[in-house]
């Protein structure tokens, strides 16, 4: 325990990190660092402004499920000032004859503007940002302005930005392939799917440090631990490349060299070649569409909702909800990836031409996976060279 206090949590290798944080839980992690937090508390609080765009509020709901610590403990222990959050705070927007009424204690729009004006906050974005129609952003509005305007104002004054969940990070389901995708034109904060040149920040010409917390929804540990690391200075927001992968995700939660499949609770069945053909069985779910081998997340170790379970444990194939191209990279969800012509930006035919069959399916998956992982490694290398 004492030893771990001196370790920089986000620069730990994955194994150590999991030992320190994954195994003992985030509340213990916070406990270890409590003296430092107390020190920070004497100085000031860390202000969080949390804004909602085109989303389902699932990431906020997930945040409320945080157990290690829970949200109120985190606010207390980390000395966080949750200055703005539409779903949780008392205020609402009030306009009388077109003018904002009352004060920031009652009016959320005044509260938001004042908090942005003061600056010095971490901006959390949940939901993607509508750019349509025609760059106006009018497909998502509130408080008599577009969310695009709100985002621009809030991003400009932010110290750093956390894009929480797939919609905010990469566009998510809003940006899934369809014939209206170009009209609605939803953007992630810094990315559109896998493309970092098409995020809303690029459109607006704003340059800010951005951390992407993937997941649909984001796991509360991923959100709260990253927040903790930023607040404690365990992440240097001016040197994020050291701790983030090529898609802006913290490597400790979304390991580059490792997939969900490696720690899947059903892994033993896979190793023994027990691959289910139908749902509701106990075996490996590869043949019913599991995308675990292509998905970088620590779900298998961390699990969900107080570590009760996770998707594959509950018999569902992984749908790759942490990968930037979600949902299209994994859809159709209940078909083996080998049956898709294109996956994860690559031609599956070149990934593997091996046909069906129990053992063969496993081999095919590994062949495909190697190619996906090689692609990530190349991307990262290229990024580093730039």
């Amino acid at each position, binding site marked *: 325990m004492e030893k771990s206090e001196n370790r920089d949590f986000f620069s730990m290798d994955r194994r150590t990190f999991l030992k320190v944080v994954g195994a003992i839980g985030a509340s213990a992690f916070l406990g270890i660092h409590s003296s430092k937090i107390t020190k920070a508390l004497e100085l000031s609080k860390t202000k969080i402004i949390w804004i909602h765009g*085109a*989303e*389902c509020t699932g990431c906020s709901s997930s945040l409320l499920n945080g157990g290690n610590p829970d949200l109120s403990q985190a606010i207390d222990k980390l000395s966080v000032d949750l200055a703005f959050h539409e779903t949780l705070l008392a205020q609402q927007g009030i306009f009388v004859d077109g003018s904002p009424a009352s004060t920031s204690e009652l009016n959320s729009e005044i509260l938001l503007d004042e908090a942005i004006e003061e600056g010095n906050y971490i901006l959390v974005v949940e939901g993607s940002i509508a750019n349509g129609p025609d760059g106006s952003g009018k497909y998502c509005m509130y408080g008599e302005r577009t969310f695009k305007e709100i985002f621009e104002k809030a991003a400009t004054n932010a110290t750093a930005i956390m894009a929480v969940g797939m919609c905010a990070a990469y566009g998510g389901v809003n940006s899934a392939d369809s014939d209206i995708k170009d009209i609605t034109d939803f953007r992630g904060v810094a990315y559109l799917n896998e493309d970092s040149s098409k995020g809303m920040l690029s459109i607006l010409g704003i340059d800010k440090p951005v951390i992407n917390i993937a997941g649909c929804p984001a796991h509360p540990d991923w959100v709260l631990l990253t927040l903790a690391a930023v607040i404690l200075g365990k992440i240097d927001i001016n040197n994020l490349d050291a701790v983030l992968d090529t898609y802006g995700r913290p490597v400790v939660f979304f390991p580059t060299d490792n997939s969900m499949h490696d720690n899947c609770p059903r892994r033993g069945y896979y190793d023994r070649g027990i691959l289910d053909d139908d749902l509701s069985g106990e075996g490996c779910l590869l043949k019913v569409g599991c995308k675990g081998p292509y998905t970088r997340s620590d779900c298998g170790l961390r699990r969900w909702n107080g570590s*009760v379970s996770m998707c*594959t444990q509950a018999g*569902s194939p992984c749908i790759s909800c942490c990968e930037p191209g979600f949902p299209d990279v994994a859809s159709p969800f209940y078909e083996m990836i080998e049956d898709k012509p294109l996956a994860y930006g690559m031609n599956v035919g070149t990934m593997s031409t091996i046909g069906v069959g129990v053992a063969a399916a496993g081999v095919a998956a590994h062949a495909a996976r190697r190619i996906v992982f090689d692609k990530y490694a190349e991307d990262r290398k290229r990024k580093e060279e730039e």
Partner: protein
Amino acid sequence: MTRVVVDPLTRIEGHLRVSTEVNANGEITDAQSSGMLFRGMERILVNRDPRDASRFTQRVCGICPTAQGMASVNALDDLYEVADQIPKDALVTRNIIQSINTMASHATHIYVLWGPDLVNPAYRDLLATVEGTGSVVWKELLSRFAPISYKLNGESITPGTAYINAIKEKKNLEEAMAVIGGKMPHQMATVTGGVTYRPNLADIGTLTGHYYKLMDFVNSSTLGVNAQTWLDNTYRASSPQKAVNFLLEHLQNLVDKSLSSNDFSFSAGWGDLELLSAFGSELIGEKTLGLPASLKIDKTGGYAEDANIGFLTYGAFYDVENGDGYDPVGFGQSAFQQAAFINSSFEKKAFDHKYVTEETSHGFYSSDDALHPYDGVTEPLTTASEITYEGGSDSRYSWIKAPRYNGTPCEVGPISRLIAMEEPLTMGMMQVFADNGYSAVNSFTRMVAKAQELLILAEQFLKWVTVDLDPNGKYFVNPDLDNAKDSKGIGLWEAPRGALGHWVKAGSDLKITNYQMVVPTTWNCSPRDANGVAGPLEQALIGTKISAAENALGVDNTNPTGILHTARSFDPCIACAVHTIDLTDKARTSRTFNIV
């Protein structure tokens, strides 16, 4: 006339704008409800493998994803012609996870989203005028219902105990959900053909444990009497009159004890529901129990006597006594919560989904007329300057469509379901309110019905888990995917906040050609229709007062509690509501639209 706009209406899911006209007496004379987001999920589903729909549609709403997933699998079971074979234990499991979702959503709504309005500073000022009791009650309200990051006059207020405990309770329930669904939000278990997970004996124990945790919360916060006693005397009362008498006698006993001691704490028997019933309602608190003041929430969110309004439920929770299989269209007749249409005179009629229509005359569409969706095409405005929320009741002002049942706008949600069930406490309370010149359905009765439904479902959840679930049963039948060819499916269900329907069609390539969702908030927060008839929320605002307790401290347009209580009592979910919108380009006008 003053224009009072609440935008955004926070503490709901998504972005809702409520715009009102208020006269010099502080009475709301006109109202528009506007959904502020266009997302287009239904079009995203076109050309996909239908089985993906139950994962995609959950992403419509992170508060009630399970209900979306359930409506979706019902539609898919129908599409793949497998509904009549779904194993009984899969149906039980689906009932279990939906009941968990509804309970968690209700607890979150009551305490985290709606409850904080009880500590609006207007009530501090109102209660300050009542010597003795007033300040005690205010402190009681504050210590229970204050939200996170709450400030009054610059002073930080500690979050209320009930508020914090409700968040823990929501977490507890979602852990129960994860036992079956893997994770929550966006559980993974609901698939066409059944469920992916086979609960084992240990899971039954775990789920039972979660029930007892829930009861600990109820018995230490929500209710001052034992939950079992409460349900025996209300839900199981032999008549609505007896159920109401139990409530009133129970409250009278508490008042008799507490008025002299000025103790309204939980230990004096005042659960959250008792406190709300006595001090939230003018009729119960002031006129019946003789309390010196109340928040008069029963005077908000009601309908005019001649209102053009109905109450609708599609039915929820399969009848699992009948073994395998269900009828996607007719299941609501034998469901635990039955399908029904109830008219404004509270006459119950059989529900027929064919009467459900939608139109967009006041939505942001370029179509000129209100079209029946069966033949209709809808094209959202794509010119930015045409998207404006300032045009008033005659204009296009929302992304939400206007659904109607046989032409009637309908309120959906817990109170509609409990009316359909003829739940004694709900029916009795509504009768008492109607007899005394109040709207039978108002913000107060709406919230009490929600709490009552949570208690009823908790008990039912335990039955499904401990009596009906067989760990050795069957949980999945593999649907024949070829059955989707040129097929269609209907999925009727109830989300926590009301009637939810999905309609799916697939083409010869077995992929989705059309997917339509008609969701609860589309009903409740509907804009006007082509006849100019306002939606339920709009109707519930018009004619009521803008500020606290019937403008008791004068008209204060800058703190429009009337709008806040009423709009939030409908538990709006805007992300859901605006997904009904779809764009149909000219090339696709040959597509057939289902009745929605």
